């Protein structure tokens, strides 16, 4: 203000130096000043005193939690200057205030708290002008409040009976100090950037990062520390939010990062949806978060001027604790990410550890917040950003792998898991997770075998996981056996699988999965009685396991105990009423036991269940698209049955005209990717595929009833969903056969095979039709191929035998007939392989 009045260049310069903390220039300026005017002497004393004090503080920065009790020469000097300035009383009121405030600070530094308080009582801090004050004065006022708070606190600890009133006064001091400090920092930055623009041609002093001194730091943070110490979470959170809402400055960046993280911690650890209140709401009068005994009298105060806060239209304001925690963590993450130390030279290892620590805390909290809400897709993207910290950091790699896995990005998850294995070769869980992915939708059996072998090779180190390892190994072999086209290879894998399952079972006799897969493997190799024994054992261990019950029913059907099988299925359905796999088997069994009418009723029932289950499905549930790569992989794998999305269609389940369906398919294909991720990972088939399957089962029942028209209508329903599905084409072929239209049937089967070259049933029927068309050698070739692909299907052998017989090859034919007969004796109503084999 002096500056503005006189307009003197020196005074402007002094103000600038005080604001920028260039104390070393002050003596020279004071000399110049006093050379011009004599009456300014007192001002000079004030400035010199301030300079001495500040330089002392710069050299001996006070530390938190330790009292600065050291009167040293420079302080006595400063005291002399300030006393001189104060004594004469010639100063203008503002400067008189400044002198008192500085004196108070000096007394605090010296440890004379009561003296400091008397100095502060000389000035009414609340009267000090905030508006239009020069920047240095803002800092001074903020520091004064903080110092006063510190002194009051020291006094109250020395004389214990501290009243609530006193506590409140202390807190108010700190809060005011913090508010003014924020204002000061904003103003200082504004001035600095303005100054930079004005002085840009000059080299000028390098824009050094401003550092908050001890007093400002205390002022900004002590208030909430006290709140939390008193167990007053509500006020502490309120204070955090106030600081965070103030517009960021360079200096407050680190503070904001820390506070944002701490607030997120509190939101995640100590709050719940019901105890939350949003930042723009008033806090609840009574909260379970606060200690019951803590006082709730939080004095409100007003300051004439406050720091700018974030404003604007459509500001996002969180409405829920997870939302707020997420927002804070994203802010914190963006800052932590900037501080990632990239260089790996040894000198910076301490810095690397620091930056890693601060980042990994943020990423852990992000994981907690997103994991609770099931947002694994977003989480995997966040953790990907953490990878710049991740060199040789097992935790970060592992978390990324898990998040990729949870987000359904299997292929990349496996690759990241490989790195995890390298970093921690002793952990059996990691290769097991990899196997789980490999034998899941990736179908990477060779890799899977490799990983499972790793677990098995860990021997005793793997402890309980060894059984799991054998189980995984068995599953890989079992799947390989199914895939193998040569009979010898198949048998070898089946043997290996059996061995592995037996090993798993002996290691973990109470694990129902090991017993179940053992039973399944025996069933696949048609050792029905043995399989029955094991499946019963599995059911003893886990009575309501759906797959065991299903397998039991299939085994009973293989022994031609259709009624028993149906009973089992019905029992299973009472526990799993919405399981379509069971229902499909039920349809087949009912056709045999109770006639097709019953089966048709079940089909109708299925349609009803389908509607009640999926009509509810929320349209906004579709999740976020997975990455391009995973999509591409998934697409390739699912080529034989393009998935159809469109959850949002309200008329699901109703009849569609073919044209509608066609346009829908196109739409679907463009959107297909968006749906991939939303399919439940372990759940049943995709809803639309399920619907199509229901229609196809109904069609089959109608075919059994010799009703081609109805069967065609059902097939058409399925075709409107999946016009290019091989199953649909196969069913069309069946209908054509029923109508006696062999050429049409042949075309349909050929089309089905064009889409899915390994579709056994189409192959078998094609062979039969070729046989009926008297094209024996071709029929033989097709049927041979079918038998090779699936050697356990009796109808294939039977048809082959007929063809051979027609060709006059009686010896071979009779052998085939025999095989067919043997296989038929142990043929289940549905192939055993429909049961899922997964970890």
């Amino acid at each position, binding site marked *: 203000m002096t500056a503005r009045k006189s307009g003197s260049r020196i005074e402007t310069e002094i103000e600038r130096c005080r604001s920028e903390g260039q104390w070393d220039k002050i003596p020279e300026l004071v000399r110049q000043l006093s050379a011009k005017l004599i009456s300014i002497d007192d001002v000079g004393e004030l400035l010199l005193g301030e300079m001495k004090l500040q330089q002392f503080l710069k050299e001996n920065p006070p530390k938190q939690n330790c009292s600065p009790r050291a009167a040293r020469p420079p302080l006595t000097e400063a005291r002399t200057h300030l006393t001189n300035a104060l004594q004469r009383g010639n100063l203008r009121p503002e400067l008189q205030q400044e002198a008192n405030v500085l004196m108070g600070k000096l007394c605090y530094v010296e440890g004379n708290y009561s003296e400091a308080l008397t100095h502060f009582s000389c000035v009414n801090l609340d009267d000090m002008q905030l508006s239009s004050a020069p920047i240095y004065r803002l800092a001074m006022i903020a520091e004064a409040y903080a110092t006063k708070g510190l002194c009051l606190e020291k006094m109250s600890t020395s004389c214990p009976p501290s009243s609530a009133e006193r506590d409140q006064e202390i807190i108010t001091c700190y809060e005011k100090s913090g508010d003014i400090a924020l204002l000061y920092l904003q103003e200082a930055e504004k001035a600095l950037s303005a100054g930079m623009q004005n002085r840009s041609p000059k080299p000028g002093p390098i824009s050094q990062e401003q550092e908050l001194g001890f007093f400002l730091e205390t002022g900004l943070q002590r208030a909430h520390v006290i709140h939390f110490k008193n167990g007053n979470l509500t006020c502490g959170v309120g204070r955090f939010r106030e600081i965070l809402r103030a517009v960021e400055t360079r200096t407050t960046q680190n503070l904001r990062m820390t506070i944002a993280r701490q607030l997120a911690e509190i939101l995640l650890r100590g709050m719940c949806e019901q105890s939350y209140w949003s930042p723009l709401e008033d806090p609840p009068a009574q909260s379970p978060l606060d200690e019951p005994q803590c006082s709730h009298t939080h004095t409100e105060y007003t300051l004439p001027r406050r720091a700018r806060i974030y404003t604007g239209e459509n500001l996002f304001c969180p409405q829920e604790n997870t939302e707020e925690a997420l927002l804070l963590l994203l802010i914190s993450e963006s800052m932590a990410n900037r501080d990632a130390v990239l260089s790996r030279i040894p000198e910076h290892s301490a810095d690397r550890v620091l930056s890693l620590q601060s980042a990994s805390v943020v990423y852990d909290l992000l994981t907690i917040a997103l994991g609770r*809400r099931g947002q694994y897709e977003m989480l995997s993207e966040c953790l990907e950003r953490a990878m710049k910290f991740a060199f040789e950091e097992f935790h970060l790699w592992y978390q990324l792998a898990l998040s990729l896995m949870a987000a359904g990005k299997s292929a990349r998850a496996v690759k990241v898991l490989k790195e995890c294995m390298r970093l921690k070769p002793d952990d059996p869980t990691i290769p097991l997770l990899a196997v789980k992915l490999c034998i899941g939708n990736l179908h990477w059996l060779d890799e899977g075998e490799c990983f499972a072998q790793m677990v098995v090779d860990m021997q005793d180190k793997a402890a309980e996981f060894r059984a799991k390892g054998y189980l995984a190994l068995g599953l890989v072999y079992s799947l390989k056996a199914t895939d193998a086209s040569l009979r010898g290879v198949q048998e070898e894998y089946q043997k290996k699988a059996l061995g592995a399952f037996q090993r798993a079972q002996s290691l973990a006799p109470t694990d129902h999965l090991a017993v179940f897969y053992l039973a399944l493997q025996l069933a696949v190799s048609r050792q029905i009685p043995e399989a029955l024994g094991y499946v019963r054992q599995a059911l003893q261990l886990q009575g309501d396991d759906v797959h065991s019950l299903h397998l039991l029913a299939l085994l009973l059907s293989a022994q031609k105990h259709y009624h028993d099988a149906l009973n089992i299925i019905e029992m299973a359905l009472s526990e799993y009423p919405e399981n379509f796999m069971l229902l499909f088997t039920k349809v087949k069994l009912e056709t045999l036991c109770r006639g097709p009418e019953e089966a048709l009723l079940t089909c109708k029932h299925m349609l009803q269940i389908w509607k009640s289950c999926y009509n509810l499905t929320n349209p906004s549930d579709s999740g976020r698209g997975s990455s391009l790569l995973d999509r591409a992989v998934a697409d390739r794998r699912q080529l034989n049955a393009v998935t159809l999305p469109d959850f949002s269609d309200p008329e699901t389940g109703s009849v569609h005209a073919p044209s509608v369906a066609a346009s829908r398919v196109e739409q679907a294909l463009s959107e297909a990717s968006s749906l991939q991720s939303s399919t439940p990972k372990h759940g049943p088939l995709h809803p639309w595929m399920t619907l199509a399957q229901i229609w196809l089962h109904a069609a089959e029942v109608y075919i059994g009833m010799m009703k081609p028209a109805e069967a065609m209508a059902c097939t058409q329903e399925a075709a409107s969903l999946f016009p290019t599905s091989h199953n649909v084409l196969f069913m069309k072929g069946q209908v054509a056969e029923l109508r006696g239209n062999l050429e049409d049937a042949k075309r349909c089967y050929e089309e089905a095979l064009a889409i899915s070259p390994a579709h056994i049933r189409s192959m078998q029927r094609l062979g039969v039709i070729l046989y009926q068309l008297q094209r024996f050698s071709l029929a033989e070739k097709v049927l041979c191929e079918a038998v090779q692909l699936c050697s356990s299907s009796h109808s294939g052998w039977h048809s082959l035998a007929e063809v051979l017989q027609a060709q006059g090859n009686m010896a071979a034919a009779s052998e085939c007939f025999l095989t067919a007969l043997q296989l038929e004796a142990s043929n289940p109503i549905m192939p055993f392989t429909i049961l899922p084999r997964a970890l």
Partner: protein
Amino acid sequence: MLAMDQGVVEEWLSEFKTLPETAISSYAASLKEKASLVPALYKVIRENYSDLLEPVCHQLFEFYRSGEARLQRFTLQFLPELVWSYLSVSAGRNPHHSGCIEALLLGIYNLEIVDKDGQSKVLSFTVPSLSKPSVYHEPSAIGSMALTEGALANHGLSRVVYSGPHLQRETFTAQNRFEVLTFLLLCYNAALSYMNSSSLQSLCQLSSRVCICGYPRQQVRRYKGINSRMIVTSEFLVQLITGIHFALCNGEPDLGSKALDDVLYRAQLELYPEVLLLGNAIKSSLRGAALKSNKEGTRSIQVEITPTSSRISRNAVTSLSIRGHRWKRHESQENSIDSPDPPLGPIPTISVTGVSGERVVNGEALRGRTEAETLGGTSELGLDPRGQEVRRQKPRDAVDLGSPEELMEISEVDEGICTQAAVKEGSPPIIVVSSTNVTPSIGKTAGKGLRRLTGSRSSKDKEREKEKEGEVSRKQSCGRAMSENLELLSLKRLTLTSSQSVPKGGALSLSRTASAAFSRSFEQVSNALGVANRASSPASNHSPKENRHSACSLQEEAYVDHLSPANVSLQLSPDV
């Protein structure tokens, strides 16, 4: 059960029945004062055969149905105990079944899945995004964000459903059991702050028991009760873990950490990634915060005054400093352009020294790579099959002009302007990745490079060029890149010779801008560079290996493909 407890419960049962509608809220407030009631009710629930169980369950349901929040919470506090009671009975396949507990659980579930109007409730939340202003930030201050696919697809705020809608359930079946229980735990977790310690303890016990029954760990925990395994779902465990986390931080560190360990143990056996994620994160985040139960309060939320200045030393290379670094280099480029003879201006050179002599393991190769990439070039640090580091200098502009996006992707915090400017001006920063053990093979490589430069490209190269062209044809600047290719190559030769004649210029301009770490390594490499230049002075350029990473593949490969040495050598083999 003691007669006294029974009396308390009976009194509680009769009291509420006679309560007039208006007195409910005052009654709810007074419930807290009945200290002996809650333990007595726990006893009733634990004792499966108590006659009081049915009326108690009925009354708890009445409480819940009243709609009074405090009464609802009173009921909710028993939820973990009720769930355990239900699960243990159904797992034991006990003929005696606790029908009333099932009914209570289903009753709460059916009340909670609908809103006031009887519509199915859908729980959703908004995913915040830094690209939209909020009460806590301004997008411009955050700097450019990673342009991941997800970020683009999700630009702005999106609401995501995390639970619901759910079907009304009449009975528990094996299929819907955990669906119902998971939802109930979600409701419980929403009121966690109001739960007292006995409820939290019961939650921890429930978690431990569900997870270890029937597994070897049951012996470790010395729990004797049911010893058959219970089926769990990962969603159920996630909800349990959320509650355990709260218990851990709010007065139950011992039981909580035990429960957390047990849930993690089970999650490992079941191979549930979701649960492992959450559990690992909680464990690791609590490792820092000391978990001792402080005497004055039960909460382990402790806040200290932290220094506000960055604790990371100024001369460490951080993501941020690299960003600033690039700006400065860019400025110096501008200067050099302004000078009368652009091609002869000093070319700033950034170099990264590889570890000499040592065998570079995968991780390190990766590290060197990312470092170099973040510096702005796409230099390749490779391994040849013999395990020696191959020295390769790859001028970025010669090949990479086509894809500025690539750079954007590499250093996500990069300002777009910088990259674009660099592309326009075409005065390239040269990235050298070198090892100090200069091998004689350099001459050979250089010779090869020369051959390629002078146009006698092998057909293989041309093919790859085509491939590359196809790859980048989507990108706008591709055409220009191809046409300018030759021109730039000649430019490159000029600039290199000039830097050889005035090597100090480049060095100076760099050492001013670069941080300590880099200027030091620069000195080392400028020597190496000198040697290299002398060795290959007529050509002065090493084979500008085509960058075969498309923008999208890079992201993948950056940390995945390089994990196995096989991949690395495979990738390089055509050129080495």
